[in-house]
């Protein structure tokens, strides 16, 4: 428990956490509220589920991934890992505490984000929230269950933290998942379409293609959740191994 208290204090005692949390809520509000007020009038109708899925979008999650990367990024950048491990020499305690606090942070921020989106929905003009809504859905897939938004967000942050642990570079922990989700996978899909399906196997193995398919419970991708989970768990295991094997 002491390691969790340590991490909790570490998390909230730097300004960057507060700044990124506020920016996350601001971006969530903009992306959630925007489609209700802007654009083609025919598109200004949103479902509650579509609205609440807003903070599962990578553009929102990138803010949380900055904080997730800080869990180890600041430790390595400022040499604090040596203080941390002097206090908690059992590295498994440190890893469990960091992962637990990250889970708590993502959960809290997701629920606060949903509260903000709920207020936006409640304040929206009559008729803009409807079961027949077609409003802009910024997630790759419309989530079938809201808990998936939370799990997807946590998985994204675990990936960011894992990359930071492996590379010992905070910026790479933020940039690599973002680039993969928004650019690299799109390029791979583009090349695949030009190759007459020869690269379909590669597209079908991409993390965020599968993550989004899992979010939307795509019927043609029954194993999407497993493939997405394999990417996240794999990255986390490599990161854990490097954390245990390398010098602090």
């Amino acid at each position: 428990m002491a390691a969790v208290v340590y991490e909790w204090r570490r998390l909230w005692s730097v300004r960057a956490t507060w700044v990124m949390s506020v920016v996350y809520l601001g971006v969530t509000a903009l992306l959630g509220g925007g489609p209700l007020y802007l654009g083609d009038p025919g598109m200004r109708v949103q479902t509650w589920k579509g609205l609440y899925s807003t903070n599962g979008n990578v553009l929102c999650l990138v803010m949380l991934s900055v904080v997730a990367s800080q869990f180890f990024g600041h430790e390595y950048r400022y040499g604090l890992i040596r203080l941390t491990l002097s206090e908690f020499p059992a590295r498994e305690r440190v890893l469990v505490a960091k992962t637990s606090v990250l889970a708590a942070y993502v959960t809290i921020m997701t629920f606060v984000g949903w509260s903000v989106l709920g207020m936006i929905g409640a304040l929206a003009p009559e008729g803009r929230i409807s079961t027949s809504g077609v409003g802009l859905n910024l997630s790759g897939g419309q989530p079938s269950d809201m808990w998936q938004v939370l799990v997807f967000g946590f998985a994204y942050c675990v990936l960011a933290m894992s990359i930071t642990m492996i590379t010992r570079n905070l910026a790479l922990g933020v940039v690599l998942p973002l680039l993969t989700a928004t650019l690299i996978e799109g390029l791979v899909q583009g090349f695949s379409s030009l190759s007459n399906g020869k690269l379909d196997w590669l597209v079908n193995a991409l993390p965020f293609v599968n993550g989004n398919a899992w979010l939307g419970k795509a019927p043609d991708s029954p194993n999407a959740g497993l493939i997405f989970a394999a990417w996240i768990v794999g990255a986390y295991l490599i990161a854990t191994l490097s954390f245990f094997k390398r010098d602090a």
Partner: protein
Amino acid sequence: MRIEVLGLDKHFKNVHAVQDLSFTVEPGRVTGFLGPNGSGKSTTMRLMLGLDNGSGQTLFDGKKLTAHSPVTRTVGAHLDAKFFHPKRTAYSHLRMLGAEAGISKARVNEVLQLVGLESVAKKRPGGFSLGMGQRLGLAGAILAEPQVLMLDEPANGLDPQSIQWLRDFLKFYASTGKSVLVSSHLLSEMQLLADDVVVIARGKLIAAESMSKFLGRSSGSAVVVRAGEATRLGQLLHNMGIESTANGLNTLTITNQTTDRIGEVAYANGIKLSELSSQTASLETVFLELTDSGQEYRLGGEAK
């Protein structure tokens, strides 16, 4: 708390940084950890704390560090003056470090006052000087009043008053029965501070003994005698197999002997002494004699 370092060994690719290093740190004493630049002092400290992976082990009162709880009441370590987040206030930094031992806010304030940082407690340490960073690091190490203090070059960047304060503090800390291991290359300072020394060069142990015994290793350590009958005393000593060197008309210099022994000889033979003193080599002299060949990085382009 007694620290036993047993066979620590560490390789960095082609460099054998620490080689089968074993020594003990006794409670109630300040142990100086000395060695030239790159000799492996910091690596050894990190190995002792389990921060680096290597072979060998370090026992604290017969147990591994992980077997102690809370660890911060066992060992307080200060390894670098810049180990803090530049945007986290000094107060928040210590509050965070106090989590494991359940340190109160009052104790955090007390320690900040002790190291003279109470006026900047709510300031971000990014703009701290090296000396202020050292104080913050020391504050973190002593926060939970640990049984063992391990400090790596804590006097770097401190002004003379602060160095004197640090010396007095560490001596007092050890006098309460706790163990203090402190590395430094400020040898004159270490001579005033340490009761015992551990000296390494190129990762190998050169000496691990009391300061007085270490200083006695030097060829420069001698007994100086001034007497009206210096010539007769010299002859008497010669007859006993003790060689002396005449140093002026009435003065003898005798190596490898104690003042007690020479005094006894003079008294037994009725020789009146004007002076009987021990001429001790400085720590710097002995250190340089013993570690000269073990210097990893040498000035003047004579790198070995």
